[in-house]
Structures are given as C-alpha cells and as structure tokens.
C-alpha cells in the first residue's frame, strides 16, 4: 500500500431489541479494542425506540446510565444512507439555520447488535444496500441462525445432530393450547425447555418440570415471539460453547468453554452481569473439562455448522453435551455473540484488538469477494419497452 488512510469503523450498538443493554456493553468493549492509530471509530447508538445517534459522548459507558444520552452535547442524529455514493453516515446538523448535514465516509460497519433488528439480517440488509463492508454474518447467515427452528432444519440437512423439537405459532397456541400440550407430552418426557424461536441471551426461555409450568412457560415465550419451540432438557447434559471465526474455507474454532450455572439455569442477570464487568467474569470453565477427542469433534462440528448456515466473521455455537455417552447436540448459533467471545479467543492468543482487527479484515475480504459478482448488466429492455409503447400498457415484459 502506498498510503493507508485510517479506516473509519462505525460501531453500531443498542438497537430495537430486548438485548439492547447487552449490546451497549458489547459495543463499548469493541470500540475500546480498536487501536486509535489505525482506526477512527464512529459510534452509532440506536435507541430503544429506533433513533440513530452518533457523537463522541457515546463512547463512554457512564453516559448510558440514564436515558438522557440523546441530549448530551455533541450527540447528533444520523442515518446510514442506502445510497451507495454516500458510503456512510449522513449526520444531521447541530442547531443553526445555515448548517448543512454532512456525510461521514465509513469503511467498515461493525454491528455490535444482539437479537431482533441487529442479529437477524435486517441491519445487514441495510449494509448490503449501502454496499459497505460489515462485520459478521450476511443477511442469510444472520437470519438463519437467529431462528432456532429453521437452524435445526438446516443443520439436520447438513448431518449435524440436534435435539428433536416441537414447534408451533402463537396463533396456534392461543387457538388450541390443550391439544398442543398433549402433543408435546406425547413426544417428550419432562423436564422440557420452552424457547421463543428468535431470541438470544436466555430471554423468554423457561424450564418446565410439570404440565402447569409448561403452560406458564409457553405463555411467557409466546409474548416474546410469534413462533415457539419446545425441546427435551437433558438432565445429565452439560452446556459447552465454541466460537468460530473466519470466512469461506478459512474458518477456525476457538477453545471451548463450559458455563457453570447449568443446574439452576442462567437467569439473564447471571449470564451478563455477575461481577459487574460484563460477560467476561460470568462463571465458566475455560477450557472446558472434556476429552481432547470430544473437544476436537465439537470444534469440527462448529466449523461445519458455521459453514452450513453461510456464516462469516464470527459466531458462538452452543451445545448440549453428554460427555460420558459421547453425545453432542448443537443447541443454537449466535451470529453476534456477547462480548464477541473475547474470553475464548484470548485463550487462542487473540487479544481484543487482534480480534476486532481480524473481524474488520474479514469484512473487507467478504466485500471483495462480493465484488466478484456482476451487478450491472446492460440490457436494452427499457429502450425496447419504450419503443413498443409500454407507456400505453400494450407492452409485455
């Protein structure tokens, strides 16, 4: 490179999602990890109700303790333009009649968003329209892995073992709950897990040991999502997580972890806030105390699953494992894991800076790969249609 200009990375966090607060924490961690000498970080905070804001104060976690962040000095409304020529943010002017809105060029977008509107392919669609490289899975991989029901369908097709499930919609549940309850109990024995199809971070998930608890859990889950699934809970299973990073044929799996609060099931606060320093200090065993052969199998399965859902960038793949029976069941794929699974990659020699830089690099590589596609194809269709009098409605496509 003859002249490498500093890359501008827009880190998006917050978002219209129940995981809004987790995303703020992840976003702050990511912004801190970028080395200032090579990267110019533009924070983009999406409020709970979907306003887009940018400005330096958004880089301070303390500024988010109350809801007044939008009123802070230096915080301005912005939007990510889908017009490819802007290639970045349009930032609204501060007060003043003669000020013009300005365009801030963005080299890479880094969505630190969890759950709906961030991890489900919707914001990725905007990046695609804007033609800006972005970190993490593309629209398909995000949307797919965000949905637990469809993920299982795809993974079964790829020969990866997953637990059986019983899926239904909220509409069906409201119309004939007893019929569904009977069906579930015919299919599985207690204990069971009830999950909304698309939420992460354990939100809306309930464990049921009895028909009464099952009914209550489904009621809760159906509040969070239109689609619900019920799975058997493996009483003798342990939870094992593995992160995957890469693009295409060059993917690698991380060291494994075993989250420790399995027996009492992690509550939301447990999972993210124990110790007050985010996810890093949640109780876990790293590396997970399982045999090398099982570890290897889980790592290989993780990469295969990542590729099966057209993953790219990073993901964390969660399993239920019965070590003594040598059984593994892939549970879910998180296309934007909390804290980027820093704590796992650290074990493999990646510092937080290494990780965000690698992910930024992967985003650019993926974008270069996309450039190999042809998007402009000259046809004379419009001329032809115009000549044939398409205006008068006589033309036929």
């Amino acid at each position, binding site marked *: *490179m*003859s002249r490498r200009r500093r890359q501008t990375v827009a880190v998006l966090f917050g978002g219209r999602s129940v995981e809004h607060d987790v995303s703020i924490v992840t976003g702050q961690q990511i912004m801190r990890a970028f080395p200032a000498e090579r990267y110019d970080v533009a924070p983009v905070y999406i409020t709970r109700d979907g306003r887009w804001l940018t400005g330096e104060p958004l880089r301070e976690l303390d500024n988010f303790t109350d809801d007044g962040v939008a009123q802070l000095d230096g915080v301005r409304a912005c939007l990510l333009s889908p017009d490819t*020529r*802007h*290639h970045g943010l349009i930032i609204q002017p501060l007060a003043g009649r003669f000020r013009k809105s300005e365009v801030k*060029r963005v080299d890479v977008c880094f969505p630190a968003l969890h759950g709906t509107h961030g991890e489900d392919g919707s914001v990725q669609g905007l990046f695609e329209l804007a033609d800006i490289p972005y970190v993490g899975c593309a629209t398909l991989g995000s949307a797919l892995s965000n949905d637990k029901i469809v993920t299982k369908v795809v993974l079964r097709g790829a020969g990866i073992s997953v637990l059986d499930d019983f899926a239904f919609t909220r509409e069906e549940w409201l119309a004939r709950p007893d019929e569904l309850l009977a069906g579930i109990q015919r299919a599985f024995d207690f204990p069971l897990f009830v999950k909304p199809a698309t939420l992460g971070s354990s939100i809306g998930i309930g464990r049921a040991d009895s028909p009464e608890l099952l009914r209550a859990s489904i009621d809760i889950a159906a509040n969070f999502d239109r689609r619900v699934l019920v799975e058997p809970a493996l009483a003798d299973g342990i939870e094992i997580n593995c992160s995957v990073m890469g693009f295409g044929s060059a993917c690698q799996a991380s060291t494994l972890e075993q989250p420790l609060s399995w027996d009492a099931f992690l509550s939301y606060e447990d999972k993210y806030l124990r110790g007050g320093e985010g996810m890093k200090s949640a109780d876990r065993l790293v590396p997970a105390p399982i045999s090398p052969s099982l570890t290897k199998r889980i790592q290989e399965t993780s990469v295969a699953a990542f590729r099966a859902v057209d993953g790219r960038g990073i993901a964390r793949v969660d399993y239920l494992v019965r070590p003594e029976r040598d059984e593994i069941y892939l549970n879910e794929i998180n296309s934007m894991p909390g804290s980027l699974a820093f704590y796992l990659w650290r074990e493999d020699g990646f510092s937080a800076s290494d990780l965000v830089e690698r992910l930024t690099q992967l985003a650019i590589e993926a974008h*270069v790969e996309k*450039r*190999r596609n042809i998007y402009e194809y000259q046809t004379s269709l419009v001329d032809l249609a115009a000549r044939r009098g398409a205006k008068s409605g006589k033309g036929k496509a």
Partner: protein
Amino acid sequence: MLELLQLAPALIWLAGAWARVYRLARFYQIEEYMNRRFLRWQAASWRRLIPPRSATAWLAGWAMAWLAAADSSSAGLSLALSAAALIAVYPPRAGEIKRGLVLTDRLKRMLAASTLLCGLALVALLILGERVPAFARQPGMSASAGALVFLLAPLWLVAGNFLAQPVEETLRRRYLRQAAATLGRIDPTVIGITGSYGKTTTKHFLREIMSARYQTYATPQSYNTLMGISLAINRDLAEDYRTEYFISEMGAYVEGEIARICQLTPPDIAIVTEVGPQHLERFGSLENVKRAKYELIKSLGRDGVAVLNWDNPYIREMAAAGHPGRIIAVSRQLSLDEAREQGVDWLASEMEPSLRGLRFRATHLPTGESALLETPVLGAHNASNLLLCIAAARHEGVAMRDIVGRVRGLQPAESRLALSTTASGVTIINDAYSANPQGIVSALQTLGMNRAGGRLLITPGMIELGELQETENRRLGKLAAQHATDIILVGAAQTKPILEGIQSASFDMRRARVVDSLSEAVDWYRENLSAGDAVLFLNDLPDTY
C-alpha cells in the same frame, strides 16, 4: 429608406462573417484554441484564407460600383452589391466532418465576444469611411467594409477568445479551487498516468483491474488536461464518498502542464507508459517531452511509487535523473538475467500474441510470484501496458487471482486495436486513435497474423512527429509492405513518405492506392474484400489535416 438600402450589402457581409466565425470555431476547437496552430492552419492554404468565390464576388461588385460611379446612390447599385454579397457569403459545402463542433460554455462565451467584435468592427469601419474624405461617399464603400470584416473572420475568433480571457480565468480559478476541495474531502489514493502514448489504454485496463478490490474512478475518455480533470472531479466525484482510488490520465502539450495537474491531484502512484515522438510538433524536442513527463515523477511524495516501463530508454533516463519515491520497473523485452541485473521488478515472458488476443507470463522477480495471463486484448505492446497495471495493482494489494480474472475479461478501449468481424466475415481491426511508432508495429503485426485471406491497411499516416515525421512514416511504409497485401493511403500530401517506404520495400505497387477521403477508402474495401480478409484502420487524422 435609401440609406438603409445602401447599408444592406454591408449587413449581408456581416451576417456572412458571423456564419464564417461559427464555421471556423470548429477548427479552432480542434486546435484546442491555440492561436498559433489555428492561424497557421488558416494560412496554410490561400483558398482557406481568402475563399475564392467570396473574393470574386466582391471584385465583381466593386467593379460594378466603379462603373456606376456617376449614380453612386442608386437603389439598383445597392441591390447589385447586395446580390454580390449574398453570393460571396453563401456558406460553402462542408467537407467530411469527423468531429463536429461541441458547444461548450466557454465556446459560447467566446462566440458571443467574437460576434460582438464583428459588429463593432463594421460600425467602426463605416464611421471611419464617412469621416475620411478619400473614402466618403465612394461607391461600394459600405460593401467593402463588410467584405473586410468577412475576410478577417479568423482574427475575430482569436480576438474574441482573447477578450473572454479574464472571464475564463476567473471561472477557471474558481473551478480548480472547487475541484481541489472535492478531492480533499473524498481523499482517494491518486494514481497518475502519463506518457506519449498508451495512457488511455493503460488507464482503462487499470480501472478494470483495481475495481476487483477497490472502488475506483478513472477520468473518462481523454479528459487529460487540467480543466478536463477538474471537470471530471467536480462532476463525478463531488458526492461520491465511496471512491478509494482516483486514476487520472495526465496529458501534456507543453512543459509545466503535468506539474499543474499534479498540484491539483497530488499523485501517490505515478505510471509512465512510453515516451516517444508523439506531439513533437507542439513540444519542440524529445528532450522537452521527457522533461514534461518527468514532472509526474517529480511530484511524488516521499512514500510515493513510480511504476515505469523499463523498456523505454527515455523513461530509464528519467529514473536515473532522481526521484523522491520508490521505483517499480517493468519490462517485456529483457531476458531474465538482464532484468535481474537491472533490478527490474516485473517481467513479462512467454509472450504469445495472436489474432484472438495475447498470452504472457508476468513474474515478480523479487518474490518469484508468477501468473499466466490471457486477454482478448490485441498487440504485443499491450503486454507492457498490462504489466504496468499489474505492478501497480499488486502493490496496492489486489490479489493475483483477481488480476488474472479481470485481465481475462478486458476489452480494448474504443478504437484502440479493437477487433470485430462484419456480417460478411471481414475482420476489422480498428486502431483509429492516435497511432504512434510503438503501436503501429503491434497493429501491423496483428494484421499480418491474418492468414485466412487478404490483409488491407487503410491509413493516413502519422502526424505531429516533428522532424521525425518523415522517417517514421517511411518506416511505417516499409513495415506495411511486410504485413499487408493491399494498402490504401488517405490523402496524397502527407502520405508521400509512406508511399516511398512501400516502394523501397519492393511492394507490388498495383496493390497500393492513394485516395482523398476515408469514405472513398471504405467504399473500396466494401467492394473488394470478402470473408476471411482483414482490414486495419490505422490512425484517424483530425479535420484540420
């Protein structure tokens, strides 16, 4: 009433002068508003300077007026003079027009000034005619004044241009400032390309190759002057924040021009394609050409990179002259050992030019990275152009496999050794744009590759080569005799050295003919060529030749 009738002949002449100014503007534009070149073109032919029909009509009118002197104010005389004026100024039939007038804003301002000047000049002459006793009330005085205004039409054009200068200068400055601000805001990496020839082709190739990885903008067509590049920036780059690379073709007809362009678009990478006797007429000497192109290398910053065609001796001299940045040298002519010895970075080998395209291997000597490239682009000389692009693109981090893919999909720039086949099966090789001593060798070799049938060359020869023009054209003739089976030369005067060259190569002179216009040549080939034959259109001269 009679007064008005007496003025009529002058007004007709004036209208004629206006029309002539407008007609001449096209040629003035082709000569890029350079007064000396334009006036020299005017003066080159008497018929052009003083149109014979106009002169005759004026003389006839004047004689009539003289004979009718006794009754100098009669309406009849005025009518006769008006008729003579009408005959004189009636526009001549336009010849072959290859490039029509482009009504730019600048030209409009200039034409307005010229039109105004014509009018003012006539009024001044008429007043003068009234005041000076020797002329006053002379028969045909007003008609003669009008005729003079008509005769001086080329001067009004030049004077109009001169008059509009201050306005142009102000607009120019504002425009340049705007372009500089735009470029600063978008802040792309700038790649400057210069050379006597091969610039546009190389720019076109490089844009395609760089686009494999980066959002790349290249100045369109031949926008290679300071104002052309500013125009491109202001028009295309202003709102385009995604642009990562800006490729700017820098042309020069005078020393200092490239330095000025570099001030506007400071290059991070400089590519020099070829230096040779192109536009020598305007530069004066090859030494000046060299100095002009060196300005690009000189403008590089400390961490700048110059990508140079090492096969060109003038460019090697430039490199020796010192430079602030790093040098990447490419060659397609040296052997591996020679290349190593001279520190060449990229070497082309295993060259296989054919009628279907070009194959060669590009090797990066310092690392040994190597790739076999295939392209539908014709002509061995394009291996040099491609090698320059490959060197620059690899330096900027474009992957070799992307380069290979892009090179395979390249199309020749329009009218630059482009191959097509007509419905009747005749292969047309179009190299109509600015032929040069390097390019013609490739072009003729390409023609020579057609073994399926006849090989026709149509060319008006090369121009603007200054003192080398005769020698180079004679060489063209000899080469043509080697590769072509039929030759049509367009225009007798400037193709004389070619004809001599052909003769000296003992070519069957019955198969060589000289015609007056391109359309005659085209007619001939339409009638005489059939499937399997190939025709090469080599160079296309501006209308001023």
